Structure formats: structure tokens, C-alpha cells
């Protein structure tokens, strides 16, 4: 059975059908792309998957567990992590602390231990530091662990967001336009990183992207949305040569 099963997912904002009858089936360990023209409902689909919006209809099942009606924090615990189209870091906190926030539910000690820094505090904080640095190393950010997140250059902020999402130990990672605003070199580097984390952390990745080089370069399967509806799905080469998809992007 697939890791993520989405059936007949839909949401309306007033009279607007932002997402209509979306069906997806994502296999464990795969790297899947979600593409479509601007306003097609891609980010809305992400927001439905992560519980930011409650769907008007349809089901979302992750690893046999129904996610509809759950709050974002619970969905995070169930195993979906995400990044945002417009970067949302904890900007006034250090790079290290950004990742440590995401470890909140994985390395625990009590509030009393927080007050007085006694008991398990030192041991657990050390464990957190080690785990966070380990993740930062993958993204080559460990040298900047003590820098404020807002002082990082743009490309590294994107990477830090992915690092933070990974720290929640997700089964499924959603990346919302990870290459937005990056130059070709940075995009190439990002493609390598994405493939690396898939192999290293054994996770499944679903990404939204407009950069067709990235999409065709690393995605194994594609879903195409247009006006909230599914236009096509299949292997990247087939989908990107589909006349319907080309029309949606370029017009008649």
C-alpha cells in the first residue's frame, strides 16, 4: 500500500474551487513532483495535507492513518513535515535553535527541569545539540550554527528550512518551491541535496516546483494541477510532453 493516499480531496473558498477532486497515491521512498501554472492550487493542496485548511471533502491517509480533521501539530507528529513558499524561519533565533525547536517533541524533559536546569536538562540538551548539528552538517550549515537565521543568505535560509523540517523526523517531506529565487548553480546543488536526503533519511518527498530542469531531473513521478483540478499524472517525460500540460503552461 502507498504511503500517502489522497482521494477526492477538495476545498472551496466561497465560490472558488481551489482544489477539486484531487487523487494522489505516493509510494514509500519515491520523489514526486506537483506542478502546475500559477494559481493552480498546489500550495492549497499542501495546506490541506498539513492541516492548515480543513478539506471540504475527501480523505487523506498517511501510512494507514486518517489525517482529515487533525491540527497541524498532530499531523506533524503523524509524520508530515513541510517547508514554505515564502520562507518562514524563526528569524530572531540562531540556526542551531531553529533546528532544536523542531526537536521539541523528540527530545523531552519536564518544565521543572527547564526552570532550574537540573536533572535531565544537560544530558538532553547535549543530545539535542548533537542531533541538530548532525542534520545541519548534511546541509553544510554546521559552521554557522550560532548565526541568527535572518542573517543567513537566501539560499542557506531555504536549506535551513529543509533541515528544520527533517528534524521532526517525517515520513513524508513536502517542499514548496525549494528552488525559488535560486541561480542555476544553487539549483543544481539543491537537486543533489534533495536526492541525498532522500537516500540518507529514507523519506518520501513531494515537491512543488516551477523549475522544469529540477522537476525533470529528480522527480520520478509527476502530478499536474490546473484550476484546482488534476490535469495529468505519470512519468516526467510523458507528462511534460503531454499537449494538455503544454497548453496549460503556454496557452493555445
Amino acid at each position, binding site marked *: 500500500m502507498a504511503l500517502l493516499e489522497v482521494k477526492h480531496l477538495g476545498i472551496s473558498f466561497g465560490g472558488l474551487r481551489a482544489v477539486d477532486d484531487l487523487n494522489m497515491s505516493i509510494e514509500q521512498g519515491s520523489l514526486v513532483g506537483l506542478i502546475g501554472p500559477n494559481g493552480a492550487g498546489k500550495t492549497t493542496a499542501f495546506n490541506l495535507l*498539513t492541516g*492548515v485548511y480543513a478539506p471540504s471533502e475527501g480523505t487523506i491517509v498517511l501510512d494507514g492513518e486518517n489525517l482529515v480533521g487533525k*491540527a*497541524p*501539530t498532530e499531523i*506533524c*507528529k503523524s509524520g508530515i*513535515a*513541510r517547508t*514554505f513558499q515564502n520562507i*518562514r*524561519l*524563526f*528569524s*530572531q*533565533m540562531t540556526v542551531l*535553535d531553529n533546528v*532544536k*525547536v*523542531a*526537536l*521539541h*517533541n523528540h*527530545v*523531552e*524533559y519536564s*518544565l521543572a*527541569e*527547564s*526552570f*532550574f*536546569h537540573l536533572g535531565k*536538562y544537560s544530558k*538532553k*540538551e547535549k543530545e*539535542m*545539540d548533537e542531533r541538530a548539528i548532525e542534520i545541519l552538517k548534511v546541509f553544510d550549515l554546521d*559552521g554557522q550554527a*550560532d*548565526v541568527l537565521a535572518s542573517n543567513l543568505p537566501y539560499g542557506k535560509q531555504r536549506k535551513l528550512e529543509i533541515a*528544520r*523540517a527533517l*528534524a*521532526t523526523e517525517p515520513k513524508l517531506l513536502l517542499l514548496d518551491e525549494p528552488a525559488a529565487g535560486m541561480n542555476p548553480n544553487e539549483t543544481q546543488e539543491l537537486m543533489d541535496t534533495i536526492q541525498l536526503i532522500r537516500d540518507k533519511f529514507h523519506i518520501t518527498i513531494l515537491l512543488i516546483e516551477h523549475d522544469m530542469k529540477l522537476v525533470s531531473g529528480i522527480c520520478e513521478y509527476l502530478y499536474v494541477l490546473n484550476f484546482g483540478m488534476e490535469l495529468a499524472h505519470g512519468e516526467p517525460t510523458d507528462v511534460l510532453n503531454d499537449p494538455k500540460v503544454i497548453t496549460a503552461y503556454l496557452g493555445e
Partner: protein
Amino acid sequence: MNKKINKSVIINVILALVAYGVVMALIYGGLLGRQAMSIIIPCCINVMLAVSLCLLVGFLGELTLGHAGFMSIGAYAGALTTNALDLPPQIELLIGLLVGGIVAAVFSLIIGLPVLRLKGDYLAIVTLGFGEIIKSVINFLGFTGGAKGLSGIGAYSNYKNFTFVYIFVLLTILVISNLVKSRHGRAICAVRDNYIAAEAVGIKVSKFKTMAFVISGFFAGMAGVFYAHNVGILKPGNFDYNKSIEILVMVVLGGMGNIKGAIIAAVILTALPEVLRSAADFRMLLYAIVLIAMMLFNNSKFRMAMIEKRNLKKAMSIQKEGE
């Protein structure tokens, strides 16, 4: 890494001891007049208030204008408790502190649950409203003495009891600055920086907002108890929004989210009106000018350069360690 932490702990302990020594020398060395002696405890109380509000304004990032309300709840609860008891003063005060803190924390929870769904300006106005409601209710109730005030409160926290008060000031600073450097504190800061991202990494936003509110309320309540036993008579009018603003000014002046700054600002702003007493009519004018000057200094290029230099030094030392 560990060594660095130990070093800062040692420095803080030394600072705390030096501050204690200086104040004790001032009290028992006969260097201070009665007037100056009388502001020692208010300084301590304001430090507690400023540090507890710092948690909300600086770290949770929510502007609240009802801090005096929680202080008053603590003050009345504590004073009523010690008035009812008949034990040695220190023990009475200890029980009063606990009761005052807990009652204020409970009220923070009751008020916080609905109010913390709001954000920004709305939250500020609603907390301002709640502060005023608390004041009015105390004014109306019989057992609080109403507008006449609650009198006959033992003077348990005057300067002779400085050591006792000082321990609780240190406790407040310790707990809040420790909290900020823990997983719970990081969650609180994450809510401040980006609550959507915080939710996405599994932080329950309302839980941590409420937690910060309750902890802050608890210490404000304790500060209120000291206040009650310092002035001896409580009047609802003492806890109006002016008091809340006064505490807020200390936090802002100290630099939002800077506990040390809040402590220094609290001491200076408490002492300032007394120091300026000799200026008679110009007192409040000078107070305002000093406030403006301090704010300007805080945002000046000179100070920014100072901070930058310090950060650079820090970054370099980290790099060296790495090599």
C-alpha cells in the same frame, strides 16, 4: 561549549553577590538616608515585574498592558492571607507569596485562555481592559476593603528584610532566564518569530502562549505580595494602567527580550524619581528627558557598533574553537 556556559554562570553568580554586597553595605554602612532606603525594596519589586513581563513582551512577543492587574491580584491574595494568619512574619510572608503567586497564576490562566487567541494590538487592548476590570472588581468587593483600601498589612518586606526579598528576585531571574534557554523557552520564542512555522514543526501555539502567560502572572503575583508588605496599605488605584505602562517602559527600555537590560532599566527607573527629587518642579520633566535620551542611546549607531563588535568577537572565538 560547556566551558563557555560555566564561565557565564560564574560571572552571573559574582554579579549577583556583588549587587547583594553593595546593597547590604549601603543599608548597614549608614550611607543612605531614609528616603533612599525606602526605594531599595521597590527596586526589587520592579525588577521582578519587569523580568516577568519581559517573558511576555520580549520572548512571547505579545504586548500586554494588564500586568499591574496580576500584580494586584497577587498583592491582595497575599495580604489577605498574611492578615488571616498568626505565625512568625517570615513564615507568614512565605505562605503569602505562594498564595499570591498561585492565585495570580490561576487568574492568568482563566483570563489567558480566551484572550490569547487574539494577537498584536487586539491583545494589548483586551489585556488593558482586563487590568481595569480587575481594579474595578477589587474596588467593588467588600473583603478587599474597596476604595478605602486594605490596611493593617505587616511591614514584612521593608529594607531590613532585603535578603529575603533578594532571594526571590534572584529566583525570578533564574527561572525566567533558564526557561528561555530550554526547550520550552525555545518553543515560546518560535511562536513569537513565526507561529505558522511553529505549528508546522509540532509546537502547540496556544499551549505555549498560555504557559508564558501563567508563569509571568505567577511572578507578577509574587512581586505584588512584596509590594503589599512594603507599603502596608493597598488601594485599587495603585494598580491602574499607569503601573502597567511603567513596567512596560522598563522592558522596552531594557531592550525587548533582554533580561539584563530589563533589570538595569527597572532599577534606574525606580531610583530616578527619587534621585531627581531635589529638582522639585522639574522632576517629571527630567524623568521624561532621561527616558528619551536612554531610548535614543539604545538605538544609536554607537551602541549598534558596540553590539556588532561583540558579535564579531563571539563569532571569531567560535571559529577558533572549531579549528
